[in-house]
């Protein structure tokens, strides 16, 4: 038990270190380095967006990884990873609103109503909002089984984020293709690999006790 607690603490430390790295590195460049070079806006907006996508994928990887490895301690990292993904998404949106658009609402409105690229990005962010808000233990307890249903919004959010990432490219699709391949692999494991203690492949249909239900639910919390 003590060993597990130490292990979780170490893992969480590793998540903090890895997830804060892009932010720290960018901050360092801004304050002590080259002030982010010729086009700081490009560095900030692309960097925050990419970090958000990577961390969102890391969040989605928790359950499949746990299922494959049987290492249940991983589950304790999911909320932390999800909140870091949300933090970078918020930064991304803030950089867009404040630095790219300078709070010029007419341009912003034009972007989020007329351009599919911005529409899907904004939609992904809006879907992540309630997930971040209800990530606390209090909300998990209050919502009960509905918490699980609500947090399935992470799947459409991830899909929309991937679309936004893809449509954001001019010609080089390497990044989005890698992200799509990893996501496909994760979903394959998520819905294809049998859950321990179950017979046959996991059901992928909707309704009832879906395998999408996470182990950390209201019942398993202290």
């Amino acid at each position, binding site marked *: 038990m003590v060993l597990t607690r130490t292990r979780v603490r170490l893992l969480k430390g590793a998540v903090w270190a890895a997830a804060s790295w892009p932010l720290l590195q960018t901050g360092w460049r801004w304050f002590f380095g080259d002030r982010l070079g*010729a*086009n*700081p806006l490009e560095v900030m907006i692309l960097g925050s967006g990419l970090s958000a996508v990577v961390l969102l994928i890391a969040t989605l990887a928790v359950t499949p990884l746990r299922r494959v490895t049987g290492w249940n301690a991983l589950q304790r990292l999911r909320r932390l990873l999800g909140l870091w993904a949300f933090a970078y998404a918020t930064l991304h949106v803030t950089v867009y609103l404040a*630095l790219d658009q300078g709070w010029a609402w007419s341009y912003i409105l*034009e*972007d989020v109503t007329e*351009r599919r690229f911005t529409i899907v990005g904004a939609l992904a962010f809006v879907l992540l909002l309630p997930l971040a808000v209800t990530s606390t233990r209090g909300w998990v307890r209050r919502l009960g089984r509905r918490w699980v249903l609500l947090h399935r919004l992470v799947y459409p959010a991830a899909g929309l984020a991937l679309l936004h990432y893809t449509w954001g490219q001019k*010609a080089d699709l390497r990044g989005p293709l890698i992200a799509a391949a990893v996501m496909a692999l994760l979903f394959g494991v998520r819905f294809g690999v049998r859950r321990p203690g179950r017979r046959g492949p996991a059901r992928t249909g909707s309704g009832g006790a879906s395998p999408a239900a996470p182990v950390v639910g209201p019942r398993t919390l202290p």
Partner: protein
Amino acid sequence: MYVRRKPAWDTIPESEITPREVYLDRRRFLAAAGIGIAGAALGPVRAAALQEAPQVGEVTYGEALRADVNDYDLITTYNNFYEFGTGKADPARNSGDFRPRPWTVEVGGEVARPGRYDLDDLIRSAPVEDRIYRLRCVEAWSMVIPWRGIPFRNLLARFEPTAEARFVAFETVYRPEEMPGQRRRVLDWPYVEGLRLDEAANELTFLATGLYGRDLPNQNGAPLRLVVPWKYGFKSIKSIVKITFTRSMPPTSWNLSAPHEYGFYANVNPEVDHPRWSQARETRLPGLAKRPTLPFNGYGEQVAHLYRGMDLTRWY
């Protein structure tokens, strides 16, 4: 229909937005500090080399933009040149193996004098000029660059296009062994671009062989590149090996890659947006400040007549 209006830039002082002095002061301070340290450690020879900052000499065009000219380092380290990689820093990093000499340009199609022209011979045929032009990228950033080169119209006289010629097609060199970006099919190599003959003959259309009075660095399109300052940057094709005069509109690389986003004309136009972003404003590098984008990038007086009666929303 294009409606001619009073140019908006009459009221915008070019120096108002770009905090270039601040930037320069910082650079000067760093350079001075560097000389101090290097001078103490390495002696006067190395210190003199550090002082050698490229200067803009006399220009035949664009004197009004002198105060806005971007730093040499910025112009040569922030490039879109996918032949050397898709990142902005890639071209400066990956173009070391590229050999810009010897260089010949193959001229063909509807011309009286087709043939393979040696570049140095070609350049000698017209007086070399220095011109300061704005560069507006389709990605909504802009720079001001002091080019060296020759007006394209001077070469037209030498090639003698026939009466059938209506367009000019340009082609970039294809050398995957020297251009690592060409080893992946990000675009359909070689890169191709084109102009209408009257656009090519316009006084602004320029063939650059240098910048800041020096030879073009590889990452900026050595040894010969087009500069059409009223069009988005991707029209200004780099490392040209082939110029063909044609009867019909030639294919262009970005139009082939994404026809809904990049047209043949690609004139800078704040009123015609890119499908993914507005083109009404631009970021003048370096920094974050936005400024309004000008019709034809501020060169309407020189080029607007070329498009009289055309629907520029359709012919984007």
